[in-house]
């Protein structure tokens, strides 16, 4: 598809449908976990939790029922790589879920599909039907006694917070989409109170490759702490926006060249909840240990007003906070009000500094990742672009 601008050597390497599942006929759960641990695969949703560790906890748990949930609630602004995977490479995602089910001992997998992706639901259902008729799903998969697994797809209803795994589980259970307290974590007490693995679409799509080609092969790509490759959803001021598969450790400047970005002033890495990187730091690398991202790369050139960019992000969070915890519900509103004060030139620096302090409180005191990361852009844009915002031509002058 046109959106996929660069197919890299890992996710988009050759893979035959069902190949990973066939491999399971000859290897044990322990061997799957070994390869996964060897690959050092980390969660692709953004948080970067080691996948093998997550699976291992659920595999070791004693429970009559376990679940594997594919988090396809791709809601981070500027992210669209999961959609490409689901549309063009469903075999990777679903085979990954079957492998997960086999490994952790789950009989049921659930895809939590973003509500706005309803239009791809039918094609996914058709694909699952085909898997069932080919015995890649269902009872005694590929003739292996007791290897039962099936996948159902559930649609979200448009709340950004439901991409947070515990809010996603609440939503799946029919409750209001709100993050749970942790601990206990979903690996212990997840969907319907049972041990549950929640993985991002891309994480699951990496798994079949690792099972077929080995953890060592996977580790050849990327950096020591960020192995394999990453799909980046590139948007904004560049000649060739789209999905790119690049090894972890790619420099921001390299990526900008590749996508045909010119006169770039800033790159927002990690979506609205990520950080805004100024030109002076374009030699930073995209990796868990440096500029981490779930995939969103937004490029802003010299013509953009960074205060407007920030306002846009803050409006998003004011709307998308689930509203349960105080720091996130009211804090984001206060940060947005601060941006509007700067916009009008009606502010004091001491108040803006107080808001930055508030942002730091939100980062540590909010209940879930939404509130903990929503002040990131407020803090990083006001820090990194203070010249432009406060002193530049047409910039705001506080009291």
């Amino acid at each position, binding site marked *: 598809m046109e959106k996929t601008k660069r197919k890299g050597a890992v996710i988009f390497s050759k893979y035959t449908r069902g190949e990973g599942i066939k491999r399971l006929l000859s290897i044990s759960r322990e061997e799957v976990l070994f390869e996964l641990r060897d690959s050092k695969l980390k969660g692709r949703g953004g948080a970067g939790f080691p996948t093998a560790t997550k699976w291992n906890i659920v595999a070791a748990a004693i429970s009559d029922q376990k679940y594997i949930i594919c988090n396809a609630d791709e809601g981070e602004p500027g992210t669209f790589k999961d959609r490409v995977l689901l549309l063009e490479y469903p075999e990777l995602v679903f085979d990954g879920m079957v492998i997960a089910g086999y490994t952790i001992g789950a009989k049921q997998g659930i895809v939590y599909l973003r509500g706005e992706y309803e239009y791809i639901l039918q094609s996914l259902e058709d694909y699952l039907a085909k898997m069932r008729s080919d015995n890649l799903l269902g009872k005694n998969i590929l003739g292996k006694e007791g290897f039962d697994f099936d996948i159902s797809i559930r649609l979200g209803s448009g709340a950004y917070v439901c991409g947070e795994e515990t809010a996603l589980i609440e939503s799946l259970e029919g409750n*209001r989409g709100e993050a749970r307290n942790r601990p206990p974590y979903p690996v212990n007490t997840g969907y319907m109170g049972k041990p549950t693995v929640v993985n991002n679409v891309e994480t699951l799509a990496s798994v079949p490759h690792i099972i077929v080609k080995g953890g060592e092969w996977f580790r050849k790509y990327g950096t020591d702490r960020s192995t394999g490759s990453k799909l980046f959803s590139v948007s904004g001021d560049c000649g060739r926006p789209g999905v790119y598969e690049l090894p972890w450790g790619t420099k921001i400047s390299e990526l900008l060249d590749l996508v045909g970005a010119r006169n770039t002033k800033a790159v927002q890495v990690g979506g609205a909840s990520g950080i805004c990187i100024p030109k002076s730091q374009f030699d930073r690398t995209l990796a868990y240990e440096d500029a981490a991202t779930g995939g969103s790369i937004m490029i802003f050139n010299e013509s953009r007003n960074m205060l407007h960019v920030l306002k846009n992000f803050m409006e998003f969070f004011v709307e998308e*906070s689930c509203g*349960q915890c*105080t720091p996130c*519900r009211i804090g*984001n*509103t206060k940060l947005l009000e601060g941006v509007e004060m700067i916009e009008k030139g009606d502010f004091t620096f001491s108040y803006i500094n107080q808001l930055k*302090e508030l942002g730091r*409180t939100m980062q540590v*005191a909010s209940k879930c990742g939404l509130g903990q990361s929503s002040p990131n852009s407020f803090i990083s844009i006001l820090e990194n672009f203070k010249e432009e915002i406060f002193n530049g031509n047409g910039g705001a002058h506080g009291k």
Partner: protein
Amino acid sequence: MESKGDLRAPVSQTPLVVEKPKDTSAIGGMVSIEINEKKVSVPLGTTILEACKMNGISIPTLCHHDDLCVAGVCRICVVEVEGMRTLQASCAYPITNPMKIKTSSPMVRKARRHIIDLLLSEHYGECYSCFRNGKCELQNLAKEYGVDSYTFGHVEEPKYEVDKSSYSVVRDMSKCILCKRCVRTCIDLQEVGVLEAVDRGDNTHIGTFLEKPLADVICINCGQCINRCPTAALRANDPSDEIWAAIDDPTKHVIIQTAPSPRAAIGEEFGLGAGHSMTRELNTALKRIGFDKVFDTNFTADLTIIEEGTELILRLYKALVKKEDVALPQFTSCSPGWVKFLEHYYPEYIDNLSSAKSPQQMFGALIKTFYAQRAGIDPANIVSVALMPCSAKKFECNRPEMHDSGYKDVDYGLTTREMARMIKEAGINLPEMPKSDFDNPFGEASGAGLIFGATGGVMEAAIRSVVEFVLGKKAEDIFEKANIIPLRGFEGVKYMEIPIGDKVGPVPDLIKHLVPNWDWLKGAVLKIAVAHGTANAKKIMDDIKAGGKFSECHFIEFMACPGGCLGGGGQPIPTTPEIRKKRAEAIYAEDESLELRKSHDNPHVVQIYQEFLTEGPCSHLSHELLHTHYIKRGRYIA
């Protein structure tokens, strides 16, 4: 997972708790932790908040409540845990590993101050004119943390219109801080599910079904949400201005009846600890305020026992002897919250409700008939007030069918909190009042009427009379000191069997015209049950629907509020399991101190059947004045 039956309101959030070990001496039963560099050891699964409390370290809370499942939403209780990037909500964090906790680090103090500042920026804090002034948890926190300015602004105008549609509960959402205690109370504790968070982000608010006024949704008026609200977002519909006006009007004869639970709790409003009964001090105070007569609701509680007990005997007689189709088990009907709960959720069972009115409404009907005649007062000039622990009583006295005296039987239901404020407004310090007695002609009542205030009390009172009626023996000979211990305590659902045996006594004169003898009860086993809090009531009702063991019961006591009336929605705030326990102890202690402890021994009750209700219990006149009917409301209101 909690089971979600089709009638179950959605759980507010799955309660996630770590089971504490039964034996903490087992390996791993205790966890060693450090709090503020002090080494302590706590049982596995203890929350950080509990651990701190156990070790004398105070942590502020807002969304936490001892009665409710954990929410972890206000974030005021955050603490620092070494090695963790973020602060942890101490109310929600179960300790399962050794950890080092700091409860007052700079980061923690800054975060708490920020959270208070944020809440104040959205809370419509008109503290002077607020009924929670001085008793508001947010106000207290602001004081504790030395808030001297509104860092992030302050609301000058209310954001929402006050919802005064309900007779019982007033909602002022401009004062709501979204701690969701009311939501958890309504959904998890009471399983009514009228309140839930609506919308998200900045627009989040607590709403009702389709944002209808509270009077138009299936609220049962129990007021438990009021008891748990940290601010003044929820309060009872206060009639004290009208009552003052009546007191000040020389043409009005203002009487008040007082229920047992307010008497056991009102001292809390005057700085006494829980569990100080103020019955006789209150009599004096009420007289000084200007009430013309003070009566004891326990008198009609005793009357309820006779009427409701007779009704039960008649139902059993019809079912067992005449083989008629009657609704059994019989349900108590004293709790107006429970009655409305049943009318909404189990309307097909309204025939099981005893037709006997609640003690409040029986008294209302008698005051404007029997008492008016005796005292020679035109009932039109009588203003009848009921001091109740209850917000649903306000709704009950406004039910259109409660006009059997020809007037509104009870004019105003007043809560314990409202009464305390009236007393304070009159410049009276209740605990200093001399003691005085109730007024005649109703005088003193029995301990059986008194224990109506605690869960299981109605049943205990009924059983004290029933065993004496049927077995012809003293209740004391069957139960030590006539205390029926299995019916006491705060277990959600209680069940008891009383075998009648082969020896029965003579039928007492009072009901001799209704049943000829007790032979038909020989060898029978009386099966009874007690539930408090509508979530527990629901357990019994669902069991009955499914044909379980409770469907074989003969008589079941239901109270809408946890703990019974002593935990009612009109009682002093705060409420906790310990406070309710102490109130119950006060009530049972007072009962035991009385000579008169059985309803049928109450001389005034005997007298009223001799002089006024001369055809006896469940007769035509008693039905006219003391019994009522119910409405099949269902769960959907047009």
